[in-house]
């Protein structure tokens, strides 16, 4: 296993490629991050409106179910039978009064407690379990679950700090902003990327790449790095909000100059259907883009009027799934729902401003593997201290991600920044 001397620089401006490829490190992440004291984004209360509604999700690679019990409370537990370790709830979603394991029909309540075991007393007094077997100690392992405006987070750790403390004020405020009224689930996107999950986690914190890799942004005038924006983190710098305000006239003039040098078309090619990139303000603020990354695997996205959550699901050291939930608000009029469905063209595996991430992550994963000691360079916006920026050509939140990763894995170097 690695030690603190893995880091060439204590400000995390150099990340050895080994950290994306070593199976031993991957297992340590599962144990110390996902099954450790992180809060993991699970899903949304809007997915389980009624008692008995359940939905399958993951914490890292651990299968988890969350549901709504008879009293209306949200419960979550590890989806693994206490008997032989089988997946209990095999469906992605549904409604049920209990969860019954396929294998030997062990039956669990909506709170995950063990309710019944077939042939518990045997047949005609023979076989079955010893009378001393304690049903109360063989429920589905509980996941501590908390809801912030209907956004569900879970942790397997007894030592996790309170959710609000974990998120920090700016991230909690951003979630309250996006989820300021009941949401409606419009559907799901899934994308399997042949790359380590951390490459995706970094990508969502990387403000620098957005309008360069995703040329559609600048080419069709949806968003450009010359707009007012920046990065805002929590106090521990583990999470990040990448944000931008809708473009002003002055921004547009600056863009003509800046993008000329960057070899990105910036000439506002016009779409035949311009509503695809039209932003209809929904609040008093001017924020037209907000990508909020919550360590380790949650992402909350507003791109114009396209709203989504993303969950990064690690699938071994070499692959991850990006599971995206497309949202509207419950009180959207039909015309607004249609606008959001059109703008969903921007996101997901076929997204006009997101499809490139799949390719960028795969080529980074592929080319970095053979040389574990070589490193990335994370210096846009400078090295040294990790802090918020009011400009967009920066990747400083990646260093924040790594600083907390190092803390949880237990490999913070001497004099490390946080």
């Amino acid at each position: 296993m690695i030690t603190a001397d893995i880091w060439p620089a204590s400000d995390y401006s150099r990340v050895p490629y080994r950290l994306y490829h070593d199976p031993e490190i991957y297992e340590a992440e599962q144990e110390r991050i996902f099954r450790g004291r992180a809060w993991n984004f699970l899903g949304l209360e809007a997915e389980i409106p009624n008692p008995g509604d359940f939905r399958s999700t993951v914490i890292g690679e651990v299968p988890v179910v969350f549901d709504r019990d008879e009293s209306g409370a949200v419960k979550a537990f590890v989806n693994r039978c206490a008997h032989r370790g089988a997946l209990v709830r095999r469906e992605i979603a549904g409604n049920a009064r209990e969860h019954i394991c396929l294998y030997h029909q062990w039956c669990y309540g909506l709170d995950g407690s063990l309710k019944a075991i077939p042939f518990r007393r045997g047949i005609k007094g023979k076989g079955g379990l010893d009378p001393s077997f304690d049903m109360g100690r063989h429920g589905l392992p509980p996941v501590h679950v908390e809801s912030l405006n209907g956004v569900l987070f879970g942790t397997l750790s007894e030592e996790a700090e309170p959710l609000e403390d974990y998120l920090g004020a700016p991230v909690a405020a951003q979630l309250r902003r996006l989820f300021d009224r009941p949401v409606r689930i419009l559907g799901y996107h899934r994308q399997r990327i042949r790359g380590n999950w951390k490459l995706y986690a970094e990508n969502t914190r990387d403000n620098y790449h957005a309008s360069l890799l995703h040329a559609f942004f600048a080419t069709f005038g949806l968003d450009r790095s010359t707009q007012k924006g920046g990065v805002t983190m929590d106090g521990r710098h583990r999470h990040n909000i990448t944000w931008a305000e809708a473009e002003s006239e002055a921004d547009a003039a600056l863009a003509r100059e800046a993008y000329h040098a960057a070899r990105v078309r910036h000439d506002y090619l016009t779409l035949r259907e311009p509503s695809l990139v039209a932003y209809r303000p929904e609040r008093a603020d001017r924020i037209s883009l907000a990508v909020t990354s919550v360590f380790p695997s949650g992402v909350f996205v507003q791109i114009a009027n396209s709203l989504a959550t993303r969950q990064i699901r690690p699938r071994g050291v070499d692959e991850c799934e990006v599971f995206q939930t497309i949202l509207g608000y419950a009180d959207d009029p039909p015309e607004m729902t249609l606008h959001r469905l059109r703008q969903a063209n921007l996101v997901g595996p076929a997204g006009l401003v997101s499809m490139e991430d799949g390719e960028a992550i795969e080529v980074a994963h592929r080319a970095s593997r053979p040389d574990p000691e070589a490193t990335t360079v994370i210096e846009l916006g400078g090295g040294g201290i990790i802090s918020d920026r009011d400009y967009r050509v920066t990747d400083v939140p990646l260093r924040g991600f790594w600083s907390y990763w190092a803390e949880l894995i237990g490999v913070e170097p001497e004099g490390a920044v946080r």
Partner: protein
Amino acid sequence: MSADPVAVWDLYARYGALLDAAQYDEWLALFAAACSYHIVPRENWERGLPAALVFCDSRAMLEDRIRALREANRFNIHSDRHLIGLPRLMTEAGVTVEAPFALYQTDQEGETRLFATGLYRDRLVGEGGSLKFRDKLILLDSFAVPSLLATPL
């Protein structure tokens, strides 16, 4: 209208061949002036959820997609190969057609993988003396999309 089965087969054969040859303008010409094109993950369809991976409810949006593919989007370097099953004419009038498909992608090293499989559920119209796609609904069985989806299904 009633559709000549041979004309329907020809339309589907050309649809796959033009995509595989990356002749997107000629491919667009297979669509009617008023048309739609949607790629819907089967998990959404079965739950009655409206979100699509690609949602073009007008010809303008479909043309924008192709323009973006050429002018802005970057994607995995590959070639496509569509295998389209026999189209099934669903009504006496022959305007609703279903056809299963598989799409293989081959990368620059010659490695081929199954990229997508699903069902076309289409409404056809006669326009300018030939059959065209009025509404194309692609129900995507393989909704865990490998890598990314850029070139049309």
